[in-house]
């Protein structure tokens, strides 16, 4: 139970009504509930989900320091110029030690704060197992239902969460930099596969053509479907190339919404989202069951003493979880 400014209590029904009516305070409260995965948050997601699917959802991913925040700001300005409203979810890492976070993405988008056609929400990754993708996907849905034309998700910059967060977006933009040879290596590990548009940002620096060539070479060996990811060059700080990037995103959105691909695309995204969320829930519940039975601790001890090998212990752990579930 949460007090509202009027002294009342948040209810899912009131928040859903507020979100659909474009009330920004209700939208902010709704996002808080979805992020917390509260009872109200789940109830309101169930209500609003049928109202989603209209927004262009765009994921912005790439290494730390690639210029994602600045690029998101530049993209939002360009979208506003084209008369579209923009919702933004900006994710920054939580400290693994204190669980606190400094969320600084607003610094690069200060001018957008005064714009009633933009809503920016900062999120901390919170380090929960699969929790980031769970809540980020829900927050995107809330912004979609609230009627924003474009919803952008800016990811943290590394790891499996990136791929799952990208699943929440119709179009994922990979932000690379000149001279980022290591980055290109890390992209082989999975980011390449989730991106439908690529841009070499900070392309006013030396080596941008080399970076474009490297990306092209990587794409040449990738297993592409009906869409060939375009590779662009941007300077987010000055806005150079940003209009072309928006055009490329629009082209991909038109592609996935075209009659030939729409059904396939929707099923693909639904599969990825559902499996990612179910995996996170399964993970949590299994670990909970494993620790309540004491099986987890006992097996950890056995492995630590080298009495059992981890692989067979993992199978035993799963058996213990299944036995615990069967008892329920």
């Amino acid at each position, binding site marked *: 139970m949460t*007090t509202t400014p009027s002294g009342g209590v*948040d209810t899912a029904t009131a928040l859903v009504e507020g979100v659909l009516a474009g009330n920004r305070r209700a939208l902010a409260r709704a996002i*808080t*509930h979805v992020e917390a995965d509260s009872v109200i948050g789940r109830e309101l997601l169930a209500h609003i989900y049928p109202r989603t699917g209209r927004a262009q959802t765009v994921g912005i991913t790439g290494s730390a320091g690639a210029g994602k925040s600045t690029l998101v700001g530049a993209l939002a300005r360009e979208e506003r110029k084209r008369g579209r409203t923009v919702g933004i979810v900006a994710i920054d890492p939580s400290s693994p030690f*204190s669980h606190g*976070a400094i969320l600084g993405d607003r610094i690069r988008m200060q001018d957008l704060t005064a714009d009633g056609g933009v809503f920016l929400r900062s999120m*901390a990754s919170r380090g929960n197992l699969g929790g980031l993708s769970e809540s980020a996907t829900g927050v995107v849905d809330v912004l979609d239902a609230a009627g924003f034309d474009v919803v952008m998700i800016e990811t943290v910059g590394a790891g499996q969460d990136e791929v799952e967060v990208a699943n929440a977006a119709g179009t994922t933009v990979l932000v690379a930099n000149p001279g980022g040879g290591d980055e290109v290596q890390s992209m082989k590990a999975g980011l390449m596969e989730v991106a439908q548009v690529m841009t070499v940002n900070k392309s006013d620096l030396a080596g941008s053509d080399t970076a474009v060539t490297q990306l092209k070479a990587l794409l040449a060996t990738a297993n592409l479907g009906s869409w060939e990811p375009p590779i662009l060059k941007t300077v987010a700080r000055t806005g150079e190339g940003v209009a072309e990037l928006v055009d490329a995103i629009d082209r991909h959105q038109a592609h996935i919404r075209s009659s030939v691909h729409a059904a396939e695309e929707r099923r693909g995204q639904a599969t990825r989202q559902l499996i990612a969320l179910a995996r996170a829930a399964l993970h949590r519940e299994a670990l909970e069951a494993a620790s309540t039975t004491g099986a987890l601790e006992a097996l950890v001890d056995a492995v630590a003493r080298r009495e059992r090998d981890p692989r067979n212990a993992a199978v035993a752990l799963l058996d213990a979880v299944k036995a615990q579930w069967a008892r329920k």
Partner: protein
Amino acid sequence: MTQERPIRVLIAKPGLDGHDRGAKVVARALRDGGMEVIYTGIRQTPQMIAEAALQEDVQVVGLSILSGAHLELFPRVVEELKARGVDDVLLFAGGIIPQEDIPAVNKIGFTGVFGPGTDTNDIIAFVREHAPVRA
């Protein structure tokens, strides 16, 4: 496996002074105290601060000011927050605020005022104790 939800805090600098060392020290201290701190940067108008507080649904707003304009700017921040229906946030202030102005600043709604030399642990304790509970 769920842990307690972190307290969300907005740290902002209203007005025209450009030194944000103090604001950044406080932001880091609160992060190390387990809070999620949204830092907006310098030269924020009261409207920008209130709008950011609304969008981020923070429980706490901390303002740092060195210019001496606190008695002009703080009431306007409170007005802008109220205009947006955000009237359940804890307000605190830091920076250069003369002793004789503190009662007036308290009256505007800034119940905590932390000047130079404050132990950041005192700020963390203040926020933990007074932040309104959210979902």
